[in-house]
């Protein structure tokens, strides 16, 4: 009997101690982590949306933690302890089959886009393998007052009637929109802190050095780094404006043959990319959703590369711009 007590009892005692030390104690200490500045509890509808998120296992494919690594910068600033104060259940996740959602409310604030994407992700991102959550939407003959029907592309819309978000989808949207990082808290002096994008030295000086020699009135594709422009466009713009530059009728404006994009004066084009656009008709059509600003996410050279890509693709012939042009527009402010 003594042997049994020593082996079963002894090892269990050791294990209980380790479980306290490595599981419970860190749990107790870290549970008291104070909320970071500007981090607020979820509202009722946002909390409801989180329940929808959990019930359908969104966090098996989407993380909600930004690591202090270069490749994570696209998702926001590195997550800080204070970010998680109201995150119970924690939804940090362990896989990124889809992108991180820590800052999705800021990265993709368009409700229209989110609804189309939830209804069928392939309607806006053809290569997406995310499930369709169409059961969270109702198909009705006529949208009830106060609810805008989701402007689905024809290929994905039901044959009859219009699609409106159910209360589940509305709550989920509210939750997604609540996922916004607050400003970086204290400015630590270590190398890990990412510099603000505008201060970052322009890594691609190609646009700056070559654009003048490309000629002022004859824009050519070779006048800038086309590959980089295409890549940045794919990463930041194509989910709405589409790789074809044609946008989605009724939801997102086309850039192909767009007046601003082909305007000899690139000021408005650069301004829109820097500071976003809301409530302004584009080529005479009014769009429901707002375009997010990119001034805090991309540096001058990157924005110049995107603008130039848009100005020289899909048959567009706009005058090319340089990083200096972007800097000048940025200096003017909103």
């Amino acid at each position, binding site marked *: 009997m003594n*042997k*049994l007590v020593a*082996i*079963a009892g002894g*090892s*269990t005692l*050791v*294990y209980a101690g*380790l479980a306290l*030390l*490595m*599981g*419970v104690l*860190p*749990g*107790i200490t*870290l*549970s008291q*982590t104070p909320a970071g500045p500007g981090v607020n509890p979820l509202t009722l509808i946002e909390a409801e949306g989180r329940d929808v998120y*959990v*019930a*359908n*296992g969104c966090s*098996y494919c989407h*993380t909600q*933690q930004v*690591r*202090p690594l*270069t*490749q994570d910068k*696209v998702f926001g600033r590195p*997550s*800080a302890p204070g970010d*998680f*104060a109201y*995150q*119970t*259940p*924690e939804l*940090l*996740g*362990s*896989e*990124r089959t*889809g992108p991180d959602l820590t800052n999705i409310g800021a990265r993709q604030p368009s409700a229209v886009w989110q609804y189309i994407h939830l209804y*069928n*992700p*392939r309607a806006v*991102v053809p*290569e*997406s*393998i995310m*499930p*369709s959550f*169409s*059961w969270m939407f109702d198909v009705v003959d006529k949208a009830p007052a106060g609810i805008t029907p989701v402007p689905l592309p024809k290929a994905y819309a039901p044959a009859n009637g219009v699609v409106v978000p159910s209360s589940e989808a509305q709550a989920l949207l509210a939750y997604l929109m609540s996922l916004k990082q607050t400003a970086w808290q204290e400015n630590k002096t270590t190398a890990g802190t990412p510099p603000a994008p505008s201060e970052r030295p322009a890594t691609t000086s190609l646009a700056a050095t070559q654009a003048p020699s490309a000629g002022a009135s004859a824009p050519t594709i070779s006048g800038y780094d086309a590959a980089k422009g295409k*890549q940045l466009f*794919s*990463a930041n713009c*194509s989910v709405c404006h589409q790789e074809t530059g044609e946008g989605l009728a009724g939801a997102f404006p086309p850039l192909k043959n767009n007046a601003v994009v082909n305007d000899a004066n690139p000021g408005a084009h650069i301004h829109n990319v820097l500071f976003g656009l809301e409530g302004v008709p584009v080529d005479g059509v009014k769009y429901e959703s707002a375009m997010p600003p990119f001034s805090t996410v991309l540096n001058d050279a990157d924005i110049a590369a995107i603008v130039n890509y848009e100005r020289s693709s899909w048959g567009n012939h706009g005058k090319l711009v340089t990083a200096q042009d972007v800097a000048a527009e940025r200096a003017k402010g909103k």
Partner: protein
Amino acid sequence: MQPAAHPSSVLKQKDLELARVFAAYTISATAWLVFATFIGILLAYKFGAPDFGSGAWLTFGRLRPIHTNATFYGWASIALVGLAYYVAVRSCRTQLYSVRLAWVGLWLFNIAAIAGTIALDLGYNDGNLEYREWPWPIRLIFLSALLVTAWNLVGTVARRTTDDIYLSNWYTMGGVLWTCIIAVVAILPWYQYGLGQVAVSGYYMHNAVGMWFTPLALGIFYYALPKLLSRPIYSYALGVFAFWTNLVFYPIIGSHHFLFSPLPWWLQTTAIVFSVAMLVPVLGGSANFLLTMRGRFGQMRESYPLAFIFVGVIGYLVGSSQGTVEAFRSMQAVWHFTNYTVGHSHLTMYGFVNFAVWGCIYALLPAATGKYPGQAGLALHFWMALVGSFIYVLSLSIGGTIQGLNWIQGSPFIQSVVDMGPFHVWRGVGGILMFLSHVVFAWNVWCMTYGPSARAAPLVPALARDDTA
């Protein structure tokens, strides 16, 4: 216990009861295996055809936890407990403390797994916290099954007629008792807010695997391997040493699942360093098994149970060492969040735990029931499972690395999704082979229990001589 030594016609009453318990646990576990891996196939298919089976009940995010939980708590847990009972009774030369408790435990395990599966499909998911997604009342049922099992197992060892407690029982008793603690820590809510819950998740998802499946699988290795070979374990002392080092090192490295997260740095550094120390029980344990088999590897040609156990040992060695490598920050920077991790979890849970369970069931269940599976069924199961899991793990490891490198290069995110395409297909191919092998396994289990026994010669005739005498 050489099969030839006891004609099945003279099984004593107590032996018959034990055989029934062992068989029932195995059959029940097998049903869960077939179910869980069928869900797995469905999930793999959805990667290529995301619009297939759309609708709340068939959506990916609900099926995925059903797959993982049914595999863990339906299949592997029930199968290992059945084996642990049998090993305890035989190695202690006694009888089950309570046959009734064993049946109660089996019912509780199954009730928990069925209720958990239904709850998840209805959207009752306890916070997407990996491997503890079942709503907490259902996890309480599972905990009660664990407590019943612990009581019964310790009671059985307490009534042993041998002086010593054989090593196997250290591992199996320990595994069940520790897991009771794990389950309690996971359920209590008072220290699980925000970042605190992240720490508990790191502890839980790590320990629920490595302090539950690992010790039970190793424990039955220490019994089945000597029995198959009629040769004692190479170093008993090393087995004891591995027991204690595993106990101390493993629980403190859980936070390596959350490197680069805002968890405190010392928790992360400790986790990394002791991930290296974990090589002691892993290398020592694997070497111990392999040295026990020294000079007898050729017998795998005749004995599939031995072949299954050999693959299990290699899976343990490779999977656990891979875990150590993955724990380094530089490696995590590439592989974390990618499909590489999914490959790793299948290498360990499948290559190690599943093959261990199969090898030991094939070695021990016929000894309990006196019935044997056919050689063709064994071969089919072995090769399909081996080739299938090889394809599965390899494709996800390569694909996961590409995914990680894509991100580092700063490609648009969708590029990593597109590049995974072919590897998702290969994963499906591997998965189908694995699933088919489980169907064959189910047939083999049927043959070993209530179905037609292969009337072939006992599985291990060549191994029955006692070369230590």
